[in-house]
């Protein structure tokens, strides 16, 4: 692509918080459930009810703010954001307008080795809306829709970035970093596919060197890291074409169509950005005690960057390996647990990143769904290290462990996979193979060292792959001297 324009991106991230109850009523905050079974008069928006704020939501929001180096507001309040839509029973969303709980933070991202600091404008608390199930295939082709209000009132924080991102890759790196930090904080499930982590992107272009921002389009409906990146790439291309042809960008909301791989303009009616915010009279202001904030600060877990540095410095892992393993708290915790029983960081890292992640990605699974217990993982590596099984066998056993959750010893026994390393047991077989293959022996003696490979292969065949290749090699050389 030409370097005529600079891409400017800001992201708004919505995060569903992992509380037990909703933000303003004690209805359970659980994903799924039969429609309209997690509801009460408050979240249904019935007249005359009083919302009461869930303290845990404040705690989670402040934790997120601290982890993102934000200022925590000493005085904060809720506001009503007014709009009409069937997923919003009160006809207003309780959110925060001018006094959000956190502001002016930053986060460091690493985009393929390039480190950059991205500003955080603000973090505010709000309630989620309900879910619409359309009668037809899409909203426009539906004659009616069904409304499930289970999600109404689920606590959200919205994290707004400064327009500091310059490419689709940076936006993705930022989003991945956010996911990791929020996962470490244990404040959200952060599953994009389930909607507990969602993001809208504001994208504009300007001539390289220009200071004034161009007109932006807001892109919605990106449900994975991949679609975020693709949607931004498409949008940049679309805007470049318009500008190159001397056209003007229309400020509008566009929806990402995953199947067609394009962004589509949403109807202007839906985006009448005139929310007539007003202070929420049913909820009282929040004044945060600095002592409590300090307690929360002290209780923050080790965050991804710190853990990565520790893995590099103390365990001798490469930047790349440490980055991948600490990119998910579940994975890093798992790695640590395997390490307790098998203290060889590089071997464990290779297995975790190679075999474990390969199988998890192939199965489109979460780390936590992995059936192999850390001590079983360590036991397998031990079996390989002491020569009981070969490296190749270990991989087969690993796949079996991953599929069945059985321990490595059980699988090795069931499959009769024990490696033969005993010299006495192998000696007879080696003599037999030498006697049966005089030409290869001669070749070897004549200096064709490769001929030994054939002999090793014969022995492996005789033992159904159970002979220890190192021992076989050593014995063969001795016998053929």
């Amino acid at each position, binding site marked *: 692509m030409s370097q005529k324009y600079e891409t400017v991106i800001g992201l708004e991230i919505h995060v569903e918080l992992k509380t037990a109850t909703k933000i303003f009523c004690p209805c359970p905050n659980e994903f799924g459930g039969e429609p309209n079974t997690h509801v009460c008069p408050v979240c249904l928006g019935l007249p005359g009810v009083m919302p009461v704020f869930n303290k845990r939501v404040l705690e989670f929001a402040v934790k997120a703010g601290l982890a993102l180096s934000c200022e925590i507001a000493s005085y904060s309040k809720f506001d009503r954001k007014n709009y009409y839509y069937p997923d919003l029973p009160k006809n207003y969303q309780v959110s925060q307008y001018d006094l959000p709980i956190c502001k002016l933070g930053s986060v460091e991202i690493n985009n393929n080795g390039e480190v950059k600091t991205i500003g955080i404008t603000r973090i505010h608390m709000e309630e989620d809306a309900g879910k619409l199930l359309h009668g037809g295939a899409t909203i426009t082709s539906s004659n009616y829709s069904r409304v499930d209000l289970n999600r109404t009132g689920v606590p959200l924080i919205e994290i707004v970035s400064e327009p500091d991102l310059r490419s689709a890759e940076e936006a993705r790196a930022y989003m991945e970093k956010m996911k990791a930090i929020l996962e470490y904080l244990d404040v959200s499930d952060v599953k994009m596919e389930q909607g507990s982590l969602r993001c809208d992107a504001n994208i504009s272009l300007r001539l390289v060197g220009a200071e004034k921002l161009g007109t932006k389009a807001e892109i919605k409906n990106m449900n994975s890291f991949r679609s975020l990146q693709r949607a931004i790439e498409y949008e940049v291309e679309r805007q470049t074409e318009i500008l190159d042809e001397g056209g003007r960008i229309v400020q509008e909301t566009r929806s990402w169509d995953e199947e067609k791989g394009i962004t589509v303009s949403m109807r202007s009616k839906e985006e009448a950005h005139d929310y007539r915010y007003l*202070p929420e009279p049913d909820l009282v202001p929040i004044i945060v005690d600095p002592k409590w904030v300090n307690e929360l600060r002290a209780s923050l877990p080790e965050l991804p960057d710190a853990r990565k540095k520790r893995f590099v410095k103390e365990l001798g892992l490469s930047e790349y390996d440490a980055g991948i393993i600490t990119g998910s708290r579940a994975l890093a915790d798992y790695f640590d647990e395997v390490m307790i029983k098998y203290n060889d960081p590089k071997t464990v890292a290779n297995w975790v990143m190679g075999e474990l992640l390969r199988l998890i990605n192939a199965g489109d699974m979460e780390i936590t769904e992995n059936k192999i217990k850390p001590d079983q993982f360590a036991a397998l590596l031990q079996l390989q290290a002491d020569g009981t099984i070969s490296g190749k066998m270990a991989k087969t056993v690993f796949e079996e462990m991953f599929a069945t959750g059985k321990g490595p010893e059980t699988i090795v026994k069931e499959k009769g996979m024990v490696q033969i390393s005993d010299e006495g047991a192998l000696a007879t077989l080696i003599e037999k193979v030498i006697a049966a293959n005089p030409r290869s022996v001669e070749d070897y003696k004549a200096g064709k060292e490769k001929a030994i490979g054939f002999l090793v292969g014969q022995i492996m065949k005789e033992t159904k792959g159970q002979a220890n290749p190192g021992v076989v090699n050593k014995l063969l050389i001795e016998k053929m001297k």
Partner: protein
Amino acid sequence: MKISKQDVEHVAVLSRLELSENEKENYTETLNSILEYMELLNRVDTSDVEPTAHVLPLINIFREDKPHEPLDRKMALANAPDEEDGCFKVPRIV
């Protein structure tokens, strides 16, 4: 006149109200007279008064994060004009 007919039309759209020409004229006039009357408030000197977010002298009313038994679904849907598969059924949205 502070509020124009266009303002009334805009607010009507936001409020999902359909107004006749007569009503638009009428509301333009009445809304303006209300605003003119409220102008009185601007005569009060508020230069050393902090903006007020809430009229009651209360702060930090919190609830513990403990679930209650949600409403029975039949009750939740009792007043719905129409329902389907345990959901509220609403007319075409766009």
